[in-house]
Structure formats: structure tokens, C-alpha cells
């Protein structure tokens, strides 16, 4: 026998029978107060160290062809000095509309050891040095603006997003984790987890987020033996599109900040081939965000893609690049003043390279991020330099936002 019960009715009932989820701040009604600002910010962490010199190619520098050799492919020209990697050619219409831009020769304050993991930790912490703090800069920013609701900010996907870690409420979800259990099973699961705050909070949030963009359809009380355990597996090659589409769905509603990762940038070997899949995912992601949010929201959206550090200026012995220092930041969206490559270009002659091997960073990667936060949420410069990015000197306003 099966008895239909809607998810919402179940949630209401389970709160009546004493499960403590009713007390959770995450179980406020489905309508959320609008965030105190309207611009959407998507922060993409490019894990593995994206080679900025390959993505935004300074072909106008006389040393470039010597350092990098024959690159192959038609790299679309950007501004007469820089050209775009051919694998991003699908983004050129955005460039033409001023909705794609770059900041070159940026890095975190991290130097010398060139560890991916420390580099990413510092990038996400937004601090001057690794000091054991577990908070991310986006979370500290949320703490400063106030009025933040459960779904104002979203960490998306299976990997941990340290950039959003911290005390301010952040939703955390992967689009393929919907719960398909009987209401009784869910209720009992809440009960067995109720004394363990971490498990209980995670399950409560999962219940909130499950099927959130679907009508709360009836759930079967008996487990159907033939019911698939999991939705049909998404081919790994398309998982990033699901993340982008889910992100776009949230941004159309109350979410103002979303963050996820794109991996696969660690191109130690055969640079020209190794970087292509990751660039393909990046282009797919930006275009899926644009299509998914719709024209009106896209006009208010800023996408910021940043990486832990750049790579060596020279190709290594295996046609790849090793861990470096200065890199590039990618900006997209209708809120961005694009169509240009920002940054102070240091040059590629050997004396201008950092430790004679890496692109010299001429600007802290946190500075453009700080100016974007200032433009979208109106945070004052002192707060940004002391709290969100402690120790940062933002410098002059580059005017990254329209």
C-alpha cells in the first residue's frame, strides 16, 4: 500500500512531532528577503593553477614566441598585444559586447613554495599569509553587509569551497543530491542524527534544498524496489553544465553570490593539449550561466574566475609549464566593464620575470576582487582592506564594474 504525502506537508508534520528542525534558522519559509543589493557575483576557483600566459597570450611581447614556441591554432586577437586562447573563441562575442575582460599579472601574496594547496587556501582565505584561519573572504564579506539570508550565498558542487567558509549563513548543495526517500525514513533519519549538530544541520539543509526547483510532488511511502538509487549518472564531461545551470537557477531568484570550482589546470605536460578540456569547461560554464540567468539578470551579473597562481613563463622539458607566480583573472558578465585587459604589464624579458622564471605579479589578485565587492555591495574601502582582505592595499579604482 502506498500513501501519498507531499514534502511540504511532511516537513510541517515532522516539526509538529518534535523533530528539532523547526528551530533551525534554515527552515524559514520559502520566501527569502531580497538581499541588500542586486548585482550577482559568481566566483569560480580554477584549481590547479591556470596558465595565464597561455589563456591571455601576450603575443606582442618579443620574448613570447621564444618562451612558448609554436602554439598552433588561431588565437583571436584582443587588443593588438594580447590574444585569447583558441579554446575560448566561443567567448569572443562577449568580448565584443564588453562582457568579457581580464586582469593580467595578478597573484595572491603567496610566494616561493608554489604549493597548489597552500596557494588555494590563501586565495580562498583572502588573507596576507596562511594563519590557520578557516574563514573565506566571501563569508567575511557577507558578515559585513548584513541582512544575509540562507540562500543569499551558495557553495555549489561536491568539493569544499573554503572561500565561503565562516559564520555567515551559506547554502551548500550539489544539483544531483536530491533525496528520494520515504517521509518516514527521512523523519527517522532526522531523529538518529538529532544529537549530532553537524550531521543534523547538513541533513536539514539537504531537506530544504532537495527538489527545491520542482513542485513538491507526492512521495511514495513504500520503497519501490525498482526505483533507481540515483538519478541517471551525468557523464563527467557534463557535470560542470549541471553546476552552471543550477547556479543560474539560484541567481534568477534570491541568490546573490555563488561559488564553485573548475579543476584541471595543472598542465605540467604538453601544455597545448592539456589545457583544452579545462578551457572548454570554463567556456561552457560562462555561456551556460549567461543563457541560464536570462538577459535581464545577466546585465547585473559579474563572473570572476581566479586561480592560486600562474605558471612558469618558459615551457618545461616536457612541453608543459611548472608552478609559477603571476597569473590572470577572468571577468565576465553584463555588470563588467569588459573588452579590455586590465593590469600593469611587467614584460617578459628575463630580468622582468619573478625569480627569472615566472610572470612578475604587479598587483594583488585580491584588489580587483575588492573593487568588485565595493561596487556591488557598497562596502567601504577600510572594511575591505581590514576585514574582508586584511592587509590589502586596494590602490586606485580600476573601474571594473559598469
Amino acid at each position, binding site marked *: 500500500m502506498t500513501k501519498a504525502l507531499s514534502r511540504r506537508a511532511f516537513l510541517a508534520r515532522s516539526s509538529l512531532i518534535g523533530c528539532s528542525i523547526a528551530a533551525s534558522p534554515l527552515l524559514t519559509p520559502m520566501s527569502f528577503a531580497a538581499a541588500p543589493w542586486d548585482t550577482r557575483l559568481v566566483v569560480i576557483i580554477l*584549481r*590547479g593553477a591556470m596558465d595565464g600566459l597561455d589563456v591571455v597570450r601576450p603575443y606582442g611581447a618579443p620574448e613570447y614566441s621564444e618562451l612558448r614556441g609554436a602554439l598552433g591554432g588561431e588565437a583571436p586577437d584582443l587588443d593588438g598585444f594580447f590574444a585569447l586562447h583558441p579554446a575560448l573563441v566561443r567567448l569572443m562575442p562577449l568580448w565584443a559586447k564588453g562582457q568579457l575582460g581580464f586582469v593580467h599579472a595578478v597573484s595572491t601574496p603567496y610566494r*616561493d*613554495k*608554489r*604549493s*597548489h*594547496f*597552500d596557494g588555494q587556501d590563501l586565495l580562498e582565505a583572502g588573507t596576507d599569509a596562511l594563519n590557520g584561519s578557516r574563514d573565506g573572504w566571501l563569508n567575511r564579506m557577507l558578515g559585513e553587509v548584513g541582512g544575509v539570508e540562507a540562500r543569499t550565498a551558495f557553495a555549489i558542487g*561536491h*568539493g*569544499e569551497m573554503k572561500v565561503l567558509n565562516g559564520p555567515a549563513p551559506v547554502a*551548500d*548543495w*550539489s544539483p*544531483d*543530491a*536530491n*533525496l*528520494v*526517500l*520515504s517521509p*518516514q*525514513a527521512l523523519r*527517522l*533519519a532526522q*531523529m*538518529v*542524527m*538529532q*544529537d*549530532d549538530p*553537524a*550531521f543534523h544541520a*547538513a*541533513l536539514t*539543509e*539537504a531537506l530544504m*534544498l*532537495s527538489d527545491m526547483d520542482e513542485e513538491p510532488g507526492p512521495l511514495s*511511502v*513504500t*520503497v519501490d524496489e525498482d*526505483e*533507481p*538509487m*540515483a538519478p541517471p*549518472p551525468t557523464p563527467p564531461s557534463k557535470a560542470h553544465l549541471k553546476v552552471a545551470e543550477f547556479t543560474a537557477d539560484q541567481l534568477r531568484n534570491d541568490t546573490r553570490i555563488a561559488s564553485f570550482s573548475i*579543476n584541471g589546470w*595543472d598542465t*605540467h*605536460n604538453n601544455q597545448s593539449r592539456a589545457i583544452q578540456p579545462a578551457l572548454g569547461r570554463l567556456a561552457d560554464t560562462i555561456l551556460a550561466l549567461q543563457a541560464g540567468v536570462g538577459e535581464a539578470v545577466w546585465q547585473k551579473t559579474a563572473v570572476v574566475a581566479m586561480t592560486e597562481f600562474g605558471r612558469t613563463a618558459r615551457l*618545461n*622539458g*616536457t612541453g*608543459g609549464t*611548472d*608552478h609559477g607566480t603571476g597569473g590572470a583573472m577572468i571577468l565576465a558578465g553584463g555588470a563588467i566593464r569588459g573588452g579590455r585587459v586590465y593590469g600593469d604589464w611587467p614584460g617578459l624579458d628575463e630580468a622582468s620575470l619573478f*625569480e627569472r622564471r615566472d610572470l612578475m605579479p604587479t598587483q594583488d589578485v585580491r584588489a580587483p576582487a575588492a573593487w568588485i565587492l565595493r561596487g556591488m555591495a557598497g562596502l567601504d574601502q577600510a572594511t575591505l582592506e581590514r576585514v574582508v582582505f586584511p592587509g590589502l592595499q586596494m590602490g586606485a579604482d580600476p573601474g571594473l564594474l559598469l
Partner: protein
Amino acid sequence: MGFSAQLAEVRFGYGMSPVVAPPASPEAMLTALAAPDEMATRFPIDSFDRFSAWVVETRKLRKAFQKTKNQEKREAYRAARRAQNEVGMEWAMRAMLRCTHTQSGFRERLVAFWADHFTAKGKIGLLRTATAPYIEDAIRPNVTATFGDMLSAVVTHPLMLHFLDQNRSTGPNSKAVKRNDRLEGLNENLAREVMELHTLGVGGPYSQDDVRQLAELFTGLTFGFGEGFRFRRGFAEPGAEQIMGKSYGGDPARLEPVLEALNDLAVHPVTARHIASKLAVHFVSDTPDEGLVTHVTERYLASGGDLMAVYTALLEHPAAWDTPRGNVKPPVDFIASGWRALAVDPDHVARLRRRDMRRTLVNPLRDMGQPWQDPNGPDGWPEQDAAWITPQGVAMRLRWAVSAPQVLCPDLPEPMGFVASTLGDFADEHVQFAARAAESQSDAIGMVLAAPAFQRR
């Protein structure tokens, strides 16, 4: 407090089993670890040599069809690839069966710990299933050796040389580079990770210069499929290298100075502390007792990195037993301990369809955030509990708990007995209630496996 047999299984093994008796003492755990490796014989996984032979054969098949564009040959190549993917799935099931039936859960946990510490995987399609044979050769036989022995085995293993790009790294002034324009120099990847991840740790006393010197010393470490590891003198950078104030090697280049440098790194006090701390975090707590870490470090140094002595120190310290159960099982361990709690029958596993293997193991692991033997980078999987207790992670675990056991174990156990055999003294009243109140046996089993008492150790 002190030693408890149930905690021994939970904290240092893959949980309690209804059919395998727990160890009686820390000494019994060490004796079982020193005994012959029964599980490796009962549930075999190919050696890397055997796997390499498959790679050689399959490359021939690929060449044959690329040359002739003959459809039959193309199909033969594809069939070989498909068959190997099935073999890889079979190895994953055997790894689960080892955890399920072993008398030494500690051995299986140590194999997993060191395989993670020395993460390596294939970066091209043909090597998709290479990790299990790598672990079988370089890690498993060495979990009771010295750390230096394991480090040498790993650093000279073909899969590590492939994974961290050592295979084609050449000395800028080597003979090979002088003869061949296309070879032109160093790749620092392996040298950096040996210092940063494998030995000293990222805060360790080494500089970019030391990384570069170690990379120069490493030139010549190569392999070929079919021939295995090979030291190629022609790739080696001439001259001696200075690493952390000591000179290694010279001309002619030889393998021995490389092994000497690895051994010096292995017995370095900073390495001792790095390893002791990782063991304490992995087995005991994300924030381990300082006394425990110091005790293990001292034994490491006194024994020259003898791993049996290191484990003895870990198991004899009171903090190993008195620290509350806080660590969350990562997804692989969560599923493996579910298998053990259900005493999954090898004969039943042999009858499982591929689809069932995918939906009870491969897909759930991916969705819980730990795709089988496929971490993102050489630093392996996170240790912090927060990385695993996410809404989607917990949702996927709950889904697995209520739906996978009936596939793995068609005669599900009686729920109250299952609570007792799985959670023992760790069962609380909520789990007892849930196991009784669930409306189906599969839900009841699921509630036990979803309980924090099962998920933490």
C-alpha cells in the same frame, strides 16, 4: 578507558563485523598485521607488471587498427579496453571484500592511508585502472617495512613517475638533451611533491632551490611499459646536487644517490613529525592530542622510521583510546564498513550485475565526493570532517544506507540484531528506536548505517 575491542575495530579498522571476532589487544592487532596477508591471496589484484603487460598488448591492438583502419581491429581494441574497465570494477569489489572479511582491519586501513599519502593515478585512458596494481606493488607489501623503503618503492614506481611527470624530465645539460632538441629539461613536479607532500611537509625546511636540485637529482628515473623502472643515465643532469646543505651524486650518475637522498628525507625529524601527525589525524582526531603526536614522532626517530614501531607507539598511547569518536568516515570507508557490518558474501558479489556494482559503489562514491581511486590532485583526500559532512554528502550517504544493503545482501539481517552487531556499545536510544520503528527492513538497516554512531569513529 584504554583499549576496547569494539573501538579497535571502529577506529583502526572497518568497523564491527557479525562474523569476524575483534582483536583482543593492541598486541593482537600488531600480530595480525605482521602475519601473512591472507586477504591479498583470497581476493587478488594484479601486480603492476601484469597490468603493464596488458598495456603493451592493448597498445599493439590500437596501433594495428590505427594503421589499417580495419573495423574488426578497432573492435578488438575497444573490447580490450572494455574488458579492462570491468576488471577495474572487479578490483574495486575485491578491495571492499578485503575490508569485509579481514581479521586485520588495521592492515586494510593502513594500506588506504599510505595509498592516499602517496597518491598516484593514471592520467591517460589506458591507465585508468592502474591505481589498484600500483597500491598492490608499492604500498601494500611495504606497510610493515620502513617509511624509507616505502618512499623508495613509490618514487621509483612507474605510476608515480607517470603521475608526477618524472618520466620525461631531463637534465638541461644531459646527453639526451644535447642529442635531441625535443627534450629540453627539467620537470619539478615529483621533486616538489616528494618534499611538500611525501616527506617534510609544506612548512618544511626546504626552498625552491632545494626543489630544483632534487629535480635535477631525480633526472634519469624513468620507466617503460614492459620493462618497468629504468634508470636512464643519459637523462641525468651531470654533476652533484646540493639539497638542504648536503651534496648528492656526481659523475657518472647513478641510482644510489637518489635513494640516499630519499632515505635522508625519510629519517628527517621534520618528516617524522609530519608522518606522526598525519597518522594521529587520520586514525584518532582532526585535532589530535599533542602528547600522542610527540610520542609517535619520537618512536619514529628512534627506530629510523620503522613502521611497526611507529604503529606500536600509536596503539600504546592512551590518547589513541581515550579520545572521543569524532572523525567522520570518508565515503569509501563508510561504504566499506557498511559491507563489513552486512558481512557481504563473496559468492553473492560474484553474481552481481555490472549495473548493481555501479549503483551501489561507483556512482554513490562519486556523489558522496570521493570517486573511486580518483582524487583531484597528489594531496589525496581531505581529512577534515567538515569536508564530508555537507548536505549533499549526508544526503547521498542516507540514500546509500537505505537502498544499497538490499542489493548487496538479499537476506537483510534482523534489525535489532544488526544494531547490536554493528554499533555494539555505541548504539544510542534513537538508533534503537529508529531500527524498531522503520516501516521496512531496508529502512531499518539504513537508519543504523546513517546514524552518526556508525559514521564517526
